[in-house]
């Protein structure tokens, strides 16, 4: 029997005729639905109403909104990023490509929207779907389609949009939403809790090893719209799931706000592997436009022997502000953070992690690679906290920064708090420049300067890329290459 040829798993990179370095910058015309600009209690109720949400959730949103409003538009000030004041009343908090609810069948989805995902390399039609990857496709504020749902249901895995989960699995949502990132957590998390519109939900039942990679593809389309999605993943006892997210947005002259919340919960002996390829529009060379990526991601390794692993490749966004963290609550639990953050031109990134050790024999690993080019600024900010009860906790941290050119910056800001004497802590940090000697060596073997530069930077990132699922590691490499275009010469 001849197996049908599997479609390639191209996720982020894509050929395009667009006259720019950013190859995902097209705009899709949709005839959908949008709530008026601005935020107030009515808007929060209207968003909840779009989805007929239960009363407890509406109340939760309103509490979040009131908390956020009490912060008086004061964003956190400690990060090493700089941006003009955001007018929170000048943002659309809800935009959907659909007039009403999401259609049951793909046949009823605007072909323009489907075409957009096909262009992005994520075809949603059944016969063209990516093999081995289940995709939840989020377009502006709503989930457009979720593939492979049937196959996943057969093994008991719930993988659906957040709005569907609220409707069909309210007990799970109510139990876990906000349990890792409370609505009071921080400014952007509070805002998200008030106005989040959709996102992805996943539940893996006890003992199940999720048979395919799960993926959410986030696409921001409409002008002036913020994207506020929530992701909630629960790995029940002894289960395993690998999840990936990819993100792109059109090129716009004005900046767009993306304030997401991701919560992961791993129970006893469960493992969650969460990978991100973030390629939001970074703005132009002078720093105009681009996405403000202000995201709260946290996992709770709640059970004994549980494990949560974050791998992120951050190449996009004008500003990145995110710290995927792990609360190591269960004894023997493991937290990992592998990160590549590349900034070019005028991009700014302040990113890192928090590892909070609570349980005994907990172990965390942090490998962060920062690359700065152009006039960009890159900051690693990480906290390792060993609580008094965390006997025999271990942490290994390694932060490496690579500078390309003379006008960029790299900063490392580690916070280490140890309240138990049995802890083992290791911290290594390096800063280096792409060396002339390395470039010359490669060029002497016939490799062009641009390719040589890329090979050196790719080599620098190897330790992180190898943590990604294979196809996505290839994608990440590719993304790095595209993001570095124009660095040489």
């Amino acid at each position: 029997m001849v197996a049908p040829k599997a479609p390639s798993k191209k996720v982020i990179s894509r050929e395009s005729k667009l006259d720019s370095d950013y190859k995902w910058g097209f705009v899709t015309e949709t005839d959908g639905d949008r709530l008026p600009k601005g935020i107030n209690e009515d808007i929060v109720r209207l968003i909840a109403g779009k989805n007929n949400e239960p009363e407890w959730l509406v109340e939760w949103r309103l509490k979040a909104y009131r908390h956020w409003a009490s912060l008086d538009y004061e964003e956190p000030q400690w990060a090493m990023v700089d941006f003009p004041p955001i007018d929170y009343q000048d943002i659309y908090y809800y935009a959907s490509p659909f007039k009403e609810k999401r259609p049951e069948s793909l046949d009823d989805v605007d072909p323009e929207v489907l075409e957009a995902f096909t262009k992005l390399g994520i075809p949603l039609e059944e016969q063209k779907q990516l093999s081995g990857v289940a995709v939840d496709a989020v377009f502006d504020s709503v989930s457009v389609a979720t593939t492979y749902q049937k196959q996943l249901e057969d093994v008991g895995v719930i993988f659906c949009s957040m709005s569907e989960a609220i409707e069909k699995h309210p007990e799970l949502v109510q139990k876990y939403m906000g349990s890792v990132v409370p609505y009071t957590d921080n400014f952007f998390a509070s805002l998200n809790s008030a106005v989040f519109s959709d996102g992805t939900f996943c539940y893996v039942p006890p003992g199940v090893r999720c048979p395919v990679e799960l993926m959410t593809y986030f696409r921001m389309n409409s002008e002036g719209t913020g994207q506020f999605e929530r992701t909630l993943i629960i790995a029940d006892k002894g289960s395993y799931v690998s999840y990936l997210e990819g993100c792109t947005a059109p090129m716009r002259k004005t900046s767009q706000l993306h304030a997401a919340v991701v919560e992961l919960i791993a129970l006893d002996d469960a493992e969650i592997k969460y990978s991100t390829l973030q390629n939001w529009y970074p703005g132009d060379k002078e720093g105009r436009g681009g996405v403000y990526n202000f995201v709260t991601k946290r996992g709770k390794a709640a059970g004994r022997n549980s494990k949560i692993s974050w791998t992120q490749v951050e190449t996009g966004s004008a500003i990145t502000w995110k710290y995927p963290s792990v609360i190591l609550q269960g004894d023997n639990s493991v937290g990992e953070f592998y990160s590549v953050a590349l900034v070019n031109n005028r991009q700014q990134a302040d990113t890192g992690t928090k590892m909070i050790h609570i349980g005994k024999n907990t172990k965390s690993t942090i490998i962060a690679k920062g690359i700065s080019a152009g006039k960009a600024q890159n900051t690693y900010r990480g906290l390792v906290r060993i609580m008094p009860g965390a006997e025999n906790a271990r942490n290994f941290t390694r932060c490496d920064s690579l500078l390309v050119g003379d006008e960029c910056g790299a900063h490392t800001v580690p916070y280490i708090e140890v309240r138990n004497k049995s802890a083992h802590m290791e911290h290594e940090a390096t800063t280096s420049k792409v060396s002339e000697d390395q470039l010359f060596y490669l060029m002497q073997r016939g490799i062009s300067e641009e390719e040589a530069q890329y090979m050196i930077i790719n080599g620098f990132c190897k330790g992180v890329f190898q943590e990604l699922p294979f196809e996505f590691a290839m994608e990440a490499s590719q993304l790095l290459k595209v993001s570095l275009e124009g660095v040489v010469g």
Partner: protein
Amino acid sequence: MAETPLLEVRNLEVSVAETEILTGLDLRVNVGEVHAIMGPNGSGKSTFANVLAGKPGYTVTGGEVQYEGKDLLKMLPDERARAGVFLAFQYPVELPGIKTREFLRTAVDVRREERGEERIKVREFNKLLEERAKAVDLDSAMVKRSVNEGFSGGEKKRNEILQLSVLDPKLALLDETDSGLDIDALKIVAEGVNRFRGPEKAIVLVTHYQRVLNYITPDYIHVLIDGRIVRSGGPELALELEAKGYDWLRETVESGSTA
């Protein structure tokens, strides 16, 4: 009509940060020939090899270099390499995260691409590489590791010869490839160079010591002192240098230059 030489260097003058290193160097190399350039420390031997390969940091203040009749100094380092100029480095750098195998395959492919050929098949290349690695006594596991990372001095030099053999250039510039090698490693390296030698190839071997010439017999020996060639001769010149040292020639130069 005389054939165009592979390499023709005329009155080459080179400075590094305002200091004159080469002060009028002339050299003509035809295919099939092996030239050894000898000289004391600081005479400009390595500068010469580096300038031919296009290493940044050197300023050519005079003279010209023709390679296959083209102006070599106008070409970028990678263009020179693809045109067949290979430099075996005196101090090969480490390239963390770049595996020797992929690095060399890329180097082979850029040459093929320039000739309009298809990329080499991965399996074909791996086989070739394994065979060539064995010839310079490098463990096949080493080519799966990052280039030169954690290699001993001798392993790095053998890795240079491995690259020479895989990339198969026309002109090999060997910059003190013999330095720091024990006798066994020296033999392996010399064997590699001798295998490369042929009627279509040329070698310019830069060395401080006569020792390597016991294993690689050059057609010509040139003595470089204070940035130019002061004496050229056949292989027998090496023995004379071994016996008398470089000072003997330095004195000749000084008395000659005042004349």
